[in-house]
């Protein structure tokens, strides 16, 4: 990548994609009012780079209306998971784009109302007639008005018309679970209208976005694709010297490192503030630094301009071990996959070493100029999540509780004794409006303790939860150190004589404490009540779910052909240290 980011690279690379047998799959439809050539090729390549198998569908030029309104169109036949609706403000406004003052106040209001209805209808028609998420790229606010400096004095200037349409569409679809807005004006702000809009290309081929900036625009679409496929990162691992502050604390000393007062120091402070904001919305931070522990921790605890403090870091590896071993340790300690880590280090040797040894870690190429650090962080689109759930916001606390649990475990010594003293309490809850998005998120993100690794979107969980022949339940876990929130879920398919466990998963943070057994026991108890003798489940191996491999066998299931089978007449060993609350 890097130099090869122009459109011709993507057009050619798209032809070379052969194998795309990836676990993550997505079907993307792009509907546009302008020419959208080059979009699908670029998105296919970008998905391929992220190991997402991608199929694409393009509407014919300016045919989006018919394709959306006709229920038997090729578009619906394609069954997209995600649909991008990209309308050009010129097409939406028509003549009004050029001569906005030909209409009276009243007519303008009427016009706005009609356009909002028209567009929200399109969006809602898609969500009603398919399972697709719909991403509407909002209308570009013009930078020119024939009224000039008097534009702002008009009740309804040209810009106001467009802003009103955008604002009203936003309100209309706010509560539509599957509909999102792509902030196109933010994209224009970032790169500038003069760069993005090219008159020659517009007149030649009705291109809304100049050829040079199509790959950048696709990055905006990728944010949604990443979030929807669960291809997001959970943890930022940071070096210290010349990464979180300027200089080397071991050599320059506590007073001489650059943090805060001079131009270089300011760039590190801003970088830390950006990191803090991500931390507060649920991205975990960790340290991986070759340093004397005492020197480094003194800065973290006592430096007056330090923004990130000890409590912001869920794991701190400040030692003389190599960076790869430390990253492995961090992944183990936090119980998250190596591929959930992003690594920031100013030292190129370290970066190359990590890249070579741990190809799944996203290694960020930090430039020598620290003033660019904040920009690099804010332009990474790997932390997107389709919904910010309560668990995301609480995650930071949860990891610090986790540290306390580990300390307590070492204190108690005996593991069984530790479990008893933890006062674990689990609540089993039927899926409802509050938990559906979290259950979907768990199916998308859980890799380790996940028996079948079936990925379900919110809409699908919602449909399952209304299905009489399915049980969709989640588990909320609490212990003496705090609330883990909803961290487990299962989906059971009820057949006449047997039940089949379709999905069974538990966040890796809490495995190995008997919670998984309690969950399975709930299913078995339910089955007994309804006189079901047979419960079956599959273990579908992936590269990551080894921790769940022996779960059914250890519980007492026996393997019959493809299924692990349990007869509900058999006795089960209840984990006595867990208090179960049923909340149905």
């Amino acid at each position: 990548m890097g130099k090869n980011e122009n459109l011709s690279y993507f057009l050619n690379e798209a032809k070379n994609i052969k194998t795309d047998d990836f676990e993550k799959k997505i079907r993307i439809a792009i509907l546009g009012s302008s020419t959208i050539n080059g979009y699908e090729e670029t998105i296919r390549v970008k998905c391929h780079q992220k190991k997402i198998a991608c199929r694409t569908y393009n509407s014919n030029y300016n045919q989006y209306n018919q394709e959306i309104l006709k229920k038997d169109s090729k578009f619906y036949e394609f069954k997209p998971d995600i649909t991008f609706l990209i309308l050009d403000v010129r097409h939406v406004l028509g003549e009004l784009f050029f001569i906005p003052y030909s209409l009276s106040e009243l007519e303008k209001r009427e016009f706005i109302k009609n356009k909002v209805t028209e567009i929200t209808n399109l969006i809602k028609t898609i969500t009603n007639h398919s399972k697709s998420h719909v991403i509407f790229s909002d209308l570009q606010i013009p930078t020119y008005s024939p009224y000039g400096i008097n534009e702002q004095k008009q009740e309804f200037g040209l810009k106001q018309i467009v802003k009103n349409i955008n604002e009203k569409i936003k309100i209309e679809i706010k509560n539509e679970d599957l509909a999102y807005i792509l902030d196109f004006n933010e994209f224009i702000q970032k790169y500038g209208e003069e760069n993005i809009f090219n008159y020659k290309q517009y007149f030649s081929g009705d291109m809304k976005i100049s050829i040079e900036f199509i790959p950048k625009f696709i990055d905006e679409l990728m944010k949604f694709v990443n979030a929807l496929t669960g291809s997001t990162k959970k943890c930022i691992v940071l070096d210290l010297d010349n990464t979180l502050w300027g200089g080397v604390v071991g050599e320059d000393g506590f007073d001489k490192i650059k943090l805060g007062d001079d131009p270089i120091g300011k760039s590190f402070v801003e970088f830390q503030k950006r990191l803090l904001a991500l931390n507060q919305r649920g991205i975990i931070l960790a340290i991986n630094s070759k340093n004397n522990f005492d020197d480094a921790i003194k800065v973290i605890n006592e430096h007056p301009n330090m923004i990130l403090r000890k409590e912001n870091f869920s794991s701190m590896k400040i030692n003389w071990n190599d960076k790869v071993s430390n990253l492995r340790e961090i992944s183990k300690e936090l119980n998250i996959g190596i591929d959930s880590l992003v690594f920031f280090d100013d030292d190129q040797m370290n970066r190359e070493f990590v890249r070579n040894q741990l190809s799944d870690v996203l290694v960020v190429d930090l430039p020598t100029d620290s003033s660019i650090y904040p920009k690099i962080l804010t332009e990474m689109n790997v932390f997107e999540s389709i919904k910010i759930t309560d668990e995301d916001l609480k995650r930071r606390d949860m990891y610090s509780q986790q540290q306390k649990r580990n300390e307590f475990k070492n204190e108690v010594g005996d593991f069984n004794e530790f479990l008893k003293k933890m006062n674990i309490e689990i609540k089993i809850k039927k899926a409802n409006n509050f938990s559906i998005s979290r259950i979907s998120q768990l199916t998308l993100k859980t890799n380790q303790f996940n028996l079948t690794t079936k990925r379900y979107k919110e809409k699908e969980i919602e449909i399952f939860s209304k299905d009489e022949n399915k049980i969709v339940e989640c588990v909320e876990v609490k212990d003496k150190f705090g609330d883990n929130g909803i961290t487990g879920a299962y989906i059971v398919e009820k057949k006449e004589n047997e039940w089949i466990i379709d999905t069974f998963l538990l966040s890796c943070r809490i495995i190995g404490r008997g919670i998984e057994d309690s969950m399975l026991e709930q299913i078995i108890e339910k089955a007994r009540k309804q006189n079901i003798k047979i419960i079956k489940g599959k273990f579908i191996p992936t590269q990551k779910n080894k921790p769940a491999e022996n779960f059914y066998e250890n519980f007492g299931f026996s393997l019959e052909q493809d299924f692990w089978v349990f007869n509900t007449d058999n006795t089960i060993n209840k984990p006595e240290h867990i208090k179960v609350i049923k909340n149905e």
Partner: protein
Amino acid sequence: MSEKLYQIISKVFNVESSKINDETSPENLEEWDSFNFYVLLDELENEFNIKFDLDETLEIKKVGDFKEIFERHRIND
């Protein structure tokens, strides 16, 4: 100049540069379609640091036509 021009054309159209000469046109090169022609124009503008006028872009019917435009823009390297 020819060599660099052929190189860029071969890269954008994804064909070997030996297949490209001044007579190459949409009629004899199937990889040359209306959209990647615009992609080519864009790359040439960036590579040679020039801007084609809209009417110039409409004049181009074969590779040789680029050279004429370049001469007009005094690009000879």
